[in-house]
């Protein structure tokens, strides 16, 4: 009875776990975060430089800059942006699935420092005088788009307009975006493509906190300006040092190609194990299925981003996971050949193989850990996958195999059937 119970447990566990795996497959697949190389989109690496002389780039400035970037990316409606600080003075921005790359880049890299100056470029008002989040797009009487702002203090605006009025005939209020030292209104004024946004003339003292900027905007330009003003200015200057973009179709093709290749590769492994190790191979194949599910589950749970090299690492990890099975099964075969019963061969083989499997996997974990610590973006994705797969190998290949093979061996159905492990009777000592 007890023996039949073991066999029953084997099938019961197998069926229950197959049902559970079947149920969680879809949620796992739907929650996989795809990287740029699979989904399309673009990545820019910015070098951060001080905006003003003497400004220090420390952890605080960097996190302020990242916060400002995050606000801007929200405006773009990117679902899974990935912003990280690298080397202490670089910011890596990954925007998967972004459609309008040009606008995204523009929106990201401008410091968005709005200033109001007089004709001699003397600062009158800047971004800190604006009420945050109050910029809007409106239309003038000719139905041209314009941007409206709200100031914090009407009296300050009255003061400024009075000053500018006194500078007549040069009574212009010049509105600049990202004014840089050396920029001059007088030099720019006659150009058709001038650097300032607009330069309305001030006709009277304006005691109001409503300001309108009309600058021959297109609708998109007006929207961008509004978004920039509402998400606040960047505390630093950023220049692009690396950028890469992947077309959505390109990413899609890479993914299907790689998954297809992987599927054939895995099928070949499963078949090989079955042919070479027979029943032992079947158990190895079952644990391999668990391995794939657990790895994907952990990967999704960690919110890691799946990249092309990540898929490669997953497939490679399968090969390495099989190694743990092979080491154990070879050991069990050795023990069977030395004349032991199936039961004691299984016990001795599993026990003897364990330290080998531990040593072999730990060394790979060391390599993967170092990769994770020093890698950048896509390499990091690869390292995460390699790390997870190595750790899961212990659970799935070692304990899974012990559990399933153990139940079968203990049930007694394998007694005196060395062929089921791929051992020839003539090879057994004493026969």
């Amino acid at each position, binding site marked *: 009875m007890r023996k039949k119970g073991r066999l029953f447990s084997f099938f019961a566990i197998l069926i229950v776990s197959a049902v559970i795996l079947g149920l969680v497959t879809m949620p796992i697949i739907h929650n996989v975060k795809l990287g740029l190389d699979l989904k399309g989109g673009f990545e820019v690496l910015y070098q951060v430089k001080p905006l003003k002389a003497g400004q220090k780039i420390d952890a605080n400035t960097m996190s302020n800059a990242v916060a400002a970037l995050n606000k801007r990316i929200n405006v773009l409606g990117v679902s899974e942006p990935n912003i990280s600080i690298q080397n202490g003075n670089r910011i890596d921005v990954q925007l998967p699935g972004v459609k309008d790359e040009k606008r995204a880049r523009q929106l990201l890299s401008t410091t968005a420092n709005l200033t109001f100056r007089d004709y001699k470029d003397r600062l009158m008002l800047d971004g800190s005088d604006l009420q945050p989040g109050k910029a809007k797009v409106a239309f003038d009487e000719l139905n041209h788009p314009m941007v409206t702002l709200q100031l914090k203090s009407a009296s300050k605006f009255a003061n400024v307009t009075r000053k500018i009025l006194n500078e007549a005939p040069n009574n212009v209020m010049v509105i600049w975006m990202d004014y840089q030292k050396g920029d001059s209104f007088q030099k720019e004024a006659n150009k058709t493509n001038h650097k300032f946004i607009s330069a309305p003339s001030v006709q009277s003292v304006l005691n109001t906190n409503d300001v309108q900027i009309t600058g021959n905007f297109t609708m998109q330009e007006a929207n961008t300006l509004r978004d920039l003003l509402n998400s606040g200015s960047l505390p630093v200057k950023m220049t692009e040092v690396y*950028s890469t973009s992947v*077309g959505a179709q390109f990413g899609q093709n890479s993914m299907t190609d790689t998954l297809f290749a*992987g599927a054939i590769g895995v099928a070949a492994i499963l078949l090989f194990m079955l042919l070479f190790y027979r029943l032992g191979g079947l158990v190895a194949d079952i644990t391999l299925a668990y391995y794939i599910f657990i790895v994907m589950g952990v990967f999704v749970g960690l919110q890691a981003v799946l990249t092309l*090299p990540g898929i490669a690492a997953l497939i490679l990890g399968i090969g390495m996971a099989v190694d743990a099975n092979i080491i154990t099964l070879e050991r069990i075969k050795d023990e069977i050949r030395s004349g032991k019963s199936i039961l004691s061969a299984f016990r001795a083989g599993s026990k003897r193989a364990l330290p080998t499997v531990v040593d072999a*996997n730990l060394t790979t974990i060391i*390599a993967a850990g170092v990769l994770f610590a020093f890698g950048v973006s896509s390499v990091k994705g690869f390292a995460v996958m390699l790390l997870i797969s190595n750790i899961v190998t212990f659970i799935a290949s070692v304990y899974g195999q012990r559990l399933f093979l153990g139940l079968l061996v203990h049930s007694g159905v394998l007694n005196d059937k060395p062929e089921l492990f791929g051992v020839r009777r003539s090879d057994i000592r004493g026969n």
Partner: protein
Amino acid sequence: MVTKSDMNYKHYNKFYSHLDFMKYRNVFFIFSSALIVLGIISLFVFRMNLGIDFSSGTRVDIQSSQPLSSQHVTQAFTDLGYKPDTVVLSGNKNHIATVRLNRELNQQQIAQLKNDIQTKYHVNPNVSTVSPQVGRDLARNGLFALIIASIFIIIYVWIRFEFLQGLTAVLALIHDAFFIVTVFSLFHIEVNVLFISAVLTIVGYSINDTIVTFDRVRENIKLSRKRLSTLQELGDVVNVSIRETLTRSINTVLTVLFPVIFLLIFGSDSIKTFTIALLVGLLCGVYSSICIACPLWAVMKAHYLAGRKVRRTVRTQG
């Protein structure tokens, strides 16, 4: 002399008993040394074909629906005002073109280029640019990671096994990593940032392979219950251990090779470099674990033990 009956169990494929790895050790050593010399020469003569990840410039990938020709793409880029450095076609219908420009483009230029290609080929190209600073940082980080990983691995093997096994295992590992570099240099295959991950994977795999064999050597030394001292005795243990683990070594490399070969044939072109590096490294890893690491350990160990004996004799005489 360790005889068959000394071993607790020594069952291996009968075919393997003809394989004497110690006998041909000098052939292996000379072969590998020749490969290393070849690699050094190749690095000086051909250098590495560094992709933009490591140098600087712009890379444009165009995936068209129709087959492309090299001249056509070159002409198109020249018309746009960018003389391409290289144009490489790939894909089964030659419908993917990878164009390398030796200069970095700025934000506006990239937008313009994408626009132009869009109108010309009706596809949205991939455009990557790297400034030399970033490329240098990547290369430095990669090398740094390799060195750190090697140090950690030596320490681990030293603790779990013995120093000489750690040393030979790492020598085998460097041998494998360098062999990948040699192949890439000789055949002028473009190296990108994924190359570093491939080399590090092979480092992990190669050490894994060597350790499984050393593990058996350690066990067989224990089982023999004898003090082994001569090269003959050590060599016998090494031969038996390799034969015992040979099926495992071959089967493991086969199971890892299956997906790698299929990735190479059917996988995306963007990881082709990566899979080539893995393929080369895997094959080299098996060879070096069996034919270099183990025999080299036996030779070094015998030398060390002989040296100790001499020192002892000298001491007792003195």
